[in-house]
């Protein structure tokens, strides 16, 4: 009976095989499988592709990069274990990862204790506000999406809106952050409706909004199928007030789900969605089209915003290692913080001691759906 216990102990002692001779080791833990795999899968593919690319071009500081990537399946507990493993066992100089806010939050504590720079791929503003010394992130925040939408509304003279939000994590978070900044744009919410993540019909909520006197625009904060249903119901009810969607549905799948009713819908999206619409003199043109082309050739699937986050994280990290002049965690951290004018797929990054995100509103493009495809809105 005790044999099994001894075997268990022996396996525990031996553990994983000893690490290979190190070049510059960069660690990653993303959610390749599990509920967040639509984020983690393109992220992991992007990281692997870019490391190959960078090494083929001679690496950084004359050394090759070795990527140690684990799949945390979206489980924060696993993410924490893998972060510990990356730092203690693989002895990486920096970590990229945390596809979701939950996994990021549990990695943040580990990197803070071990003093290893960490670039997160998750959306929540709490990751960089308040600023944590060792944590950075590349994705724009919900608050920035709200700001972009309100900026557009303000320019169109809209001052009174109706809101309809999903009650899931994304919808609730965006709803909260939109309300925090809406006053800065002189816009007020006259009517505030919600729907459940699995609801199949939002006609009642939209009828309420339609019936409300003075509503000049409708904003739908949501993720997944909800916004597509809202858009279809919006079309069925023949509502004339303009509809704004969030960056949560900035994908081709949304246009297909929502059907013809989606024509005229406006939403903030990233440059990669409209790569073919970017002008040659756009600052992001070269980076976005190069990444899109390489990714689509390598994987055969369309490039996504999420892969873009991973692209920016790795490029930013390698760029910082180059500027630091040595592959030491503290030096790399300082170099990341001093990043200025780094052009990524998501936007132009200017970090500082008080801003570990470094993006401004130009990271978002206001898009409009026209004839079943994206167009740049004005």
């Amino acid at each position, binding site marked *: *009976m*005790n*044999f*099994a*216990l*001894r075997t*268990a*102990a022996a*396996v*525990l*002692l031996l*553990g*994983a*095989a000893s690490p290979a001779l190190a070049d510059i080791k960069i660690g990653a833990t993303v959610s390749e*499988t599990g509920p967040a795999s639509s984020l983690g899968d393109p992220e992991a593919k992007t990281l692997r592709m870019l490391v190959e690319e960078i090494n083929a071009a001679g690496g950084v500081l004359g050394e090759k990069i070795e990527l140690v990537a*684990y*799949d945390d399946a*979206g*489980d*924060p*507990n*696993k993410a*924490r*274990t893998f972060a*510990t*493993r990356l*730092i*203690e*066992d693989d002895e990486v100089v920096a970590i990229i990862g945390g596809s*979701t*806010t*939950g996994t990021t*939050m*549990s990695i943040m*504590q580990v990197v803070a*204790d071990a003093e290893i720079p960490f670039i997160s791929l998750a959306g*929540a503003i*709490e990751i960089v506000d308040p600023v944590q010394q060792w944590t950075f992130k590349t994705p724009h925040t919900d608050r920035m999406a709200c700001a972009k939408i309100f900026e557009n509304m303000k320019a169109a003279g809209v001052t009174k809106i109706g809101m309809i939000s999903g*009650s*899931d*994590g994304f919808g*609730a*978070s965006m709803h909260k952050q939109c309300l925090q900044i809406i006053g800065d744009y002189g816009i007020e919410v006259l009517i505030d409706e919600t729907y459940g993540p699995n609801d199949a019909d939002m006609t009642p909520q939209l009828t309420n909004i339609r019936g409300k006197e003075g509503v000049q625009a409708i904003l739908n904060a949501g993720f997944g199928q909800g916004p597509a249903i809202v858009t279809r119901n919006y079309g069925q009810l023949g509502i004339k007030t303009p509809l704004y969607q969030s960056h949560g549905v900035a994908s081709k799948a949304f246009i297909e789900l929502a059907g013809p009713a989606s024509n005229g819908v406006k939403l903030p999206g990233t440059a990669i969605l409209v790569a073919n619409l970017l002008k040659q003199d756009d600052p992001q043109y070269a980076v976005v089209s190069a990444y899109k082309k390489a990714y689509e050739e390598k994987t055969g699937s369309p490039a996504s915003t999420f892969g873009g986050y991973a692209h920016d994280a790795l490029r930013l990290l390698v760029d910082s290692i180059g500027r630091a002049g040595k592959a030491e965690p503290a030096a790399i951290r300082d170099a990341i913080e001093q990043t200025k004018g780094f052009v990524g797929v998501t936007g132009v990054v200017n970090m500082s001691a008080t801003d570990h995100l470094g993006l401004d509103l130009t990271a978002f493009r206001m898009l409009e759906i026209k004839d079943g495809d994206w167009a740049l809105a004005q």
Partner: protein
Amino acid sequence: MRLSSSKHLTLLVLAAIILIAPFGFPSNFYYRIGSLIFVNGLAVTGLVILIGFAGQISLGHAGFAGIGAYACALAPQYLGLHPALAMLLGTALSAAIAWLIGRPILRLQGYYLAVATLGFGILVSMVLANEAPITGGPDGHEVPELGLRKLLETIGLDLSNAQFWYAFTGLFLLAGTWLALNLHDSPSGRALRALHDSEIAARTVGVDVTRYKLSAFVLSAVYASLSGSLLALMNKFITPDAAGFLHSIELVTMTVLGGAGSVPGAVAGAALLTMLPQVLTVLQDYEHMILGLIMMLVMIFMPSGLVPSLSRLLRGRT
């Protein structure tokens, strides 16, 4: 009564392994894996009492782990409780809930009981995910520092964070194992095992079936709750995944893989399923396939689980 004679030996061997293993640890990562094995092992020991001793299935025990975990996250914030007291509160709450829901649902048997407990687990994780203003929702909630490590430092016992949690969770596992082993040989344990084999026979010889089933359910809920609390305090962060359906299944798998009726089997099952994913990362894309294959092979060739099958094999040789 073989186990009775080897009870102290089992405890001794377990204690020795916990004590000696760190000498072979190259880094803190191994302490972390050890602590995770102990935390899972604790919950699985509870399930051994419920599934192995009493013969009742539960697919919702992660729900109790979630209650224990969120008690440590929320009680310090809203009630101003010390995390250690929050852990006790979570345990009491889990026991009370287990007692309340156990009374009606333990009348069910087999599949019906499985589905009822499954429903309970999903309910807990849904409440934790949906009550975002209180629980932080799917993005999780921070858990305060237990502070015991600092206390130990002042009396001259200087442990690193990973070492402290290894020792602390190890002690809990030892205590849990000791309790379960004692229960196994006690009159109550025999009553439980009697109703495992045949409820009718047990009732005929005067065993209060309802009461014993309920006690086993409550006790296993306490184990799960403590394991959830420890995980939350160790990670200092918790998300509703801790209460999730997948975690429940993982716990039952560990129980069955190790050997449902065997207390050391609980630790072996927890150790196997905690370590394998770490060892198998070298296989990259085939990781999940190999993990499934190993689990299938264990169940095909060792149908009564790792520890009982291996010990039978060893006894056969001597």
